[in-house]
């Protein structure tokens, strides 16, 4: 994974074009181009139309405080494969405005709303620029470096209060309200009117009601406490009869400030936090973050560590897809029976994780340059038994019970379809994209670790409906078993860590985007280091979050009960959606 490999844009002439309109990035450790901020739409449109950069993977903001600039960073990919094209656009910190990418890529919609929410950058031409993770009326834009949270202690960890010689006191005692809150000077609730949810209802009702039929549009709220919303997701819908006219996901009910805390943490301290992103597949999250930081540090793990990593990532994929398929059936109304079958297998996999890492769910197993400790030999025997005997049999069993089930077929076939063009335009990744017929899998399109030498198929289906997403997940489990068989046969002996394990890693200045094919889709970590023990910017490109962008497209025209099926097939985890 060298830098030469991720810059194939020199082949197709995109570099010549960019050299004529933009400046090569010159900061140490940075790659890509600095584009003029007022030209961003023109340049990216040209790249999309002439050089086939049709997949906008990630948009994020960076605060260069104390420099008076904010930055918007675009990561463009081709859906046919290849590395990232990174574009930086710098804008004035006091009046941050830039043209929106939504007319070109619908997938930018939620990401730009997030940047507006957390950095306060105005996107001109964005159809629905509201706060997304926090609520309307919140005071400030929290990811700006000069914005301090109520429990602020110091800029970076480790805090003095956590050392024995420092003063040990509860942070609450320094807050006037003894709570995690802060208010603007002079604020009093007595002469303040709550903002309410008018903006939210207006956003969902903006669609015109049909003229011929004199029907009333009804606004229906789903969640955040709802038996099939997969956590604290809330959706607000406008319906005509029972038909969905418009639907807006309302996010942020689990916004745990992952990125703000991450920028205060040291590099290694972030690792356990990544477990809690997609908490069903913590090993995949570790993988992505370890890759990003290893790219910055310029180290590679030893052979055996690579094999252990891939083994853990594929076991995670099986457990996550098991749960996804089980809970899809839950949402269809098969109350808990199929998920009990899935959870039974998941427990066996959790035993493997617990034996290797010490924890069932929050593994915190990967380190920069390897893994925390070697896998005990008896665990490998157990994995071998699972892979050779139990899992293929159980996957076939699930297949036999569900795939040809009349009710499953009627409820899912043709529901919530997404064409390949739409899916790429919405920046969808993972099984949803592959069910729409696009063979895009990071393990093949931008290979990392040892996937290049492993044999497996990228599973695709053609209809792009809920049923095909279910089938893709089922087949991917079989492919994971196939990978695991090869991994177990080829796993070499040797060390599992490059160098000595240290608490404080030295990370040179620069930027890196490490991405893996997590069970939910492309999980990317964008890390900027300025040579200090803490990252300057730490951003997670969360697949569940971006896949939610297409929720409205997939639901329009279907009934309320079908929305649940669509949601089940998107397979979100709220820890990752809201971060």
């Amino acid at each position: 994974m060298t830098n030469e490999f991720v810059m194939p844009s020199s082949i197709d002439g995109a570099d010549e074009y960019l050299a004529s309109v933009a400046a090569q990035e010159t900061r140490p450790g940075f790659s890509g181009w600095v584009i003029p901020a007022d030209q961003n739409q023109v340049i990216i449109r040209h790249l999309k139309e002439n050089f086939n950069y049709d997949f906008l993977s990630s948009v994020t903001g960076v605060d260069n405080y104390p420099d008076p600039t904010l930055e918007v960073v675009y990561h463009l990919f081709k859906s046919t494969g290849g590395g990232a094209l990174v574009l930086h656009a710098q804008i004035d910190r006091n009046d941050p405005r830039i043209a929106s990418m939504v007319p070109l890529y619908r997938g930018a919609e939620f990401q730009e709303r997030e940047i507006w929410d957390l950095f306060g950058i105005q996107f001109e031409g964005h159809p629905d620029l509201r706060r997304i993770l926090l609520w309307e009326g919140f005071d400030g834009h929290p990811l700006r470096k000069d914005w301090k949270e109520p429990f602020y202690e110091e800029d970076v960890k480790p805090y003095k209060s956590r050392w024995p010689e420092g003063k040990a006191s509860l942070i609450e005692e320094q807050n006037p309200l003894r709570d995690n809150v802060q208010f603007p000077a002079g604020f009093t609730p007595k002469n303040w009117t709550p903002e309410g949810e008018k903006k939210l209802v207006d956003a969902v009702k903006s669609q015109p009601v049909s003229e011929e039929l004199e029907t009333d549009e009804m606004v229906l709220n789903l969640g955040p406490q709802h038996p099939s919303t997969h956590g604290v997701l809330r959706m607000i819908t406008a319906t005509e009869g029972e038909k969905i006219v418009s639907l807006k996901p309302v996010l942020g009910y689990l916004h745990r400030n992952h990125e703000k805390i991450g920028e205060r943490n040291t590099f290694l301290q972030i690792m356990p936090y990544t477990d809690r992103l997609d908490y069903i597949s913590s090993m995949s999250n570790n993988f992505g973050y370890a890759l990003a930081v290893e790219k910055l540090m310029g180290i590679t793990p030893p052979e055996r560590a690579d094999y252990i990593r891939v083994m853990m990532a594929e076991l995670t994929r099986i457990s996550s897809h098991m749960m996804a398929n089980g809970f899809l059936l839950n949402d269809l109304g098969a109350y808990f029976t199929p998920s009990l079958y899935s959870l039974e297998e998941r427990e066996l996999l959790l035993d493997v994780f617990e034996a290797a890492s010490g924890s069932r769910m929050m593994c915190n197993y990967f380190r920069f340059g390897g893994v925390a400790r070697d896998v005990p030999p008896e665990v490998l025997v157990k994995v071998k038994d699972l892979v050779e005997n139990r899992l293929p049999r159980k996957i076939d069993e699930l297949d036999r019970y569900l795939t040809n089930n009349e009710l499953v077929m009627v409820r899912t076939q043709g529901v919530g379809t997404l064409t390949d063009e739409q899916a790429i335009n919405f920046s969808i990744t993972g099984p949803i994209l592959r069910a729409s017929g696009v063979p895009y899998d990071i393990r093949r399109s931008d290979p990392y670790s040892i996937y290049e030498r492993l044999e497996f198929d990228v599973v695709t289906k053609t209809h792009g409906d809920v049923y095909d997403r279910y089938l893709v997940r089922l087949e991917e489990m079989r492919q994971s078993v196939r990978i695991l068989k090869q991994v177990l046969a080829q796993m070499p002996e040797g060390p599992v860590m490059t160098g000595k394990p240290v608490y404080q890693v030295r990370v040179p200045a620069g930027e890196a985007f490490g991405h893996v094919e997590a069970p939910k889709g492309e999980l990317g970590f964008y890390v900027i280091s300025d040579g200090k023990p803490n990252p300057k910017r730490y951003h997670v490109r969360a697949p569940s979050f971006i896949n939610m962008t297409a929720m409205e497209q997939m639901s329009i025209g279907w009934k309320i009960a079908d929305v649940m099926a669509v949601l089940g097939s998107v397979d979100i985890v709220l820890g990752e959606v809201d971060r």
Partner: protein
Amino acid sequence: MDKFDPNKDGVVIPPELQHQVTVTTLDKIYNWSRSKSMWPMMFGLACCAIEMICTAASRFDLARFGMEVMRSSPRQSDVMIIAGTVTKKMVPFIVRLYNQMAEPRYVIAMGSCASGGGPFKEGYNVVPGIDKYLPVDVYVAGCPPTPEALLNGLMTLQKKVETESIATSPWYSKKAEPVPVPLLGPDLIDLKKIDLFPIQIPVESQPEPPAASEVGGAE
């Protein structure tokens, strides 16, 4: 069932009625039946919810304790398991759900986030512990707690329920006041502390209102 012996109060039962009649106190039989059919609310917030699902699934099998009936509606549930990080955006909904539960109602703070903010305590959108808003009965430690720990927490709650009495329990002496639902303004506004506004720094803040009786959590 180990502690439950309905006949131990020294009431003499005639031999002909033995094995047919049981004499006990109302509290005992009432608490026994309540504690053996605690219905949790199906309500997950974050990572801990997955362990809660695992606890309910076949390996750990919550049904052994009469608790497998997870209700989606607060009106039908007895205990609310706060399974995960409580955020400022979510806490008005949690308080509303708690107010909608029928009395007597109990709260279990599952995991370190719900107990005290956990690893996310310093976050700007995180409530450092649900006990700032709701009276918590049992705290369960862990991040996330293993299913065994949650089971221990639920059994601790059962023991607590068995010590209650209809005569002295607050649920029956007066109508329980609903917890005021916090508001989302520039930041989360706790209506219990509304008299402290506008905030002058430094200010002597009032002590926290005492929570309902607490039983030591499963450590």
